[in-house]
């Protein structure tokens, strides 16, 4: 953790943030009413959004004397050491149960080496079925990357689905935001995902939906919530290590958040868009 940066907020702004935190606690309350804690998981990537969600969840559980849900993080094989350290340090400090998900089969086939060729035929039947499912059945080998179209699917989506299925998870908390979103109904916070071919049915709960990027930073700094030091070096959004970039050396919270896109440095949006264009015949 870098030294705590100074933040000066007006009393109005502080009560605004407190109201947003209260709204999130309300969503946690509804989630605990709907699901036993053993069926819930907190998706915690170590990024600023899911760490804020986790911090609010912890405050909520302490107030209500409830136990925390198990946290779940996915190691996609290309993780920042700084993120890894934050996850381990705070899991210990806050006494959290933290489960790690990995696609060991793909990591083994790649020899734990980025950009190494992975032979599709050397993968498990499940991974091969997943490759066919996303329309890449013609492929015989691919380079191992965490955020290519195929890498993102195998290293995150498949790992997530397998975990949900194996552990009988019924609902997960996600740190997703709808930036600068106007008031919404509570329905928007709960998204029931129906069962698909290889996707188990579950509910996605988004307790910090109403936080903007600015809100996240103001709350993080004001409430002293831990954050990965990479944000202080200018990263706005943290994905896989080799594909996350920064556009500035200025700490994320001091950048002009409105004028530049948060995910500009991220590869996975590009991959998703390029994949669609390829399927439409444009690439």
């Amino acid at each position, binding site marked *: 953790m870098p030294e705590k940066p100074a933040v000066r907020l007006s009393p109005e702004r502080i009560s605004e943030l407190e109201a947003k935190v209260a709204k999130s606690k309300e969503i946690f309350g509804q989630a605990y009413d709907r699901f036993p804690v053993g069926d819930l998981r907190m998706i915690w990537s170590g990024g600023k959004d899911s760490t804020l969600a986790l911090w609010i969840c912890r405050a909520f559980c302490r107030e209500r004397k409830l136990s925390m849900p198990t946290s779940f993080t996915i190691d996609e094989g290309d993780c920042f050491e700084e993120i890894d350290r934050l996850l381990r340090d705070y899991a210990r400090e806050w006494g959290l149960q933290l489960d790690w998900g990995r696609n060991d089969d793909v990591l083994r086939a790649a020899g734990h080496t980025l950009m190494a060729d992975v032979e599709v035929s050397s993968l498990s039947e499940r991974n091969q079925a997943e490759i066919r499912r*996303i*329309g890449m059945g013609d492929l015989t080998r691919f380079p191992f990357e965490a955020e290519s179209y195929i890498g993102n699917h195998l290293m995150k989506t498949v790992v997530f689905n397998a975990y949900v299925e194996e552990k009988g998870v019924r609902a997960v908390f996600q740190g997703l935001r*709808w930036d*600068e*979103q*106007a*008031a*919404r*109904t509570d*329905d*928007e916070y709960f998204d029931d995902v129906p069962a698909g071919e290889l996707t188990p049915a579950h509910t996605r709960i988004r307790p910090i939906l109403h936080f903007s990027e600015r809100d996240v930073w103001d709350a993080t700094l004001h409430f002293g919530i831990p954050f990965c030091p990479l944000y202080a070096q200018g990263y706005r959004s943290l994905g896989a290590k080799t594909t996350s970039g920064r556009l500035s050396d200025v700490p994320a919270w001091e950048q002009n958040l409105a004028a530049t*896109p948060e*995910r500009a440095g991220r590869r996975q*949006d*590009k991959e*998703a*868009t*390029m994949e*669609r*264009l390829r*399927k*439409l*015949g*444009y*690439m």
Partner: protein
Amino acid sequence: MCPARLAPMNASQNVILLTIDTLRADVLGCCGGHLGLSPFIDSLAASGMRYSRAQAAGPYTQASFPGILTSSYYLDHQDHGKGRTLSRERVVISEPLRKAGVATAAFHSNPYLSAFFGWNRGWDVFYDSMQDQVSDEVPFIQAPAINARVDRWLGAHAAAGRKPFFLWTHYMDMHEPYVPEQKHVDAVDPGLRLSSQEMLGLFKNTLLPRDVSDPGKVETLRKLYLANLRKIDDCVKEFFDILERHGALEDSTIIVTSDHGDEFGEHGGLSHDGCMRSELLHVPLLVLNAPGSPKGVCDRLAGGADIPPTILELFGLPAESRFQGRSLLSPDDEAARGVFSEAMGKRGRQKDTDRPVYCYREEDLRVSYLAEEDRWELFDLAADPAEKRNLMDCSPRAGEMKAGLAPRIDRKRT
């Protein structure tokens, strides 16, 4: 002439823009087609204003949408290359609307209009579907799923206290690869039976290489495209049912249009490339349920770039100086000037060596300049709707039309 004048709305009213990708005007009954595949869209046209001479700002999505959503032209800025983000010089219609307190929401599934390319500016809610799973057969989220999101958003918006909104919905379902369900194929040709693999085969082996050598295959592609029209007409009906259920129909002016058409060998091409012909540029444009319920067919020229200024004026908001189109609410005589379209003259996939194509229309004359061949073309769309006779060397208006387009060619871009 126009049968009625559009007027601004009262406060608290909404604007809804429904755009249908790849929908050419002439297949619709309301635009003179005789296929009977679009009964609902035709009934909409009969209930409001239809602009019979609407021209897309470009013949494919990247060239056309700068007009529809930013009232600017594709070649104004150098943001049209591979992976470039929408220029900040362009004003997305959502931006001034949101600043004025209008709720803005977008639901679509066209990758060229995704957040990655910068189209998410100014929206309270922007759904581009890029994180969702799609299949190879239909590589985009389809209209029924888009409608479900609209339905949910309208419910949430109503519950949140109903400030005026601008809703943009876009359907991809007419777009290749054409893999319609058999029931929709039956509406076009009950004798046509193809598996989805055979349809994808036509996409990969005939449409993608732009191979028009076999007229039978081109005709089959056209039928599959028309089958998608039968489907999309039902989806538009479902969309209007959703609006009605949320009470949004009576309080909203609804604009229905398309970004471009599709070609089936009329001028030697397939799909939609940089070809300035009516099969790609002539789009439907309907304005429904405007204040005073004006009805009829308006033959003033309208371009995609006219849509954003129209939306601002409907909301009673001041004009945006960077918008290049003219509001459809403006008097007819102001529309006497022509409309422009432009693009890169690609064939199939875009290449770095592609050169621009420009065109300018006045009344029924359309002049084009193809930089690649340094060639001018002039067609009289009324006398020669198939655009077969180039009048550049014989029309008395050739010089005047050329002069109308010249300022746009090789202008400085930022």
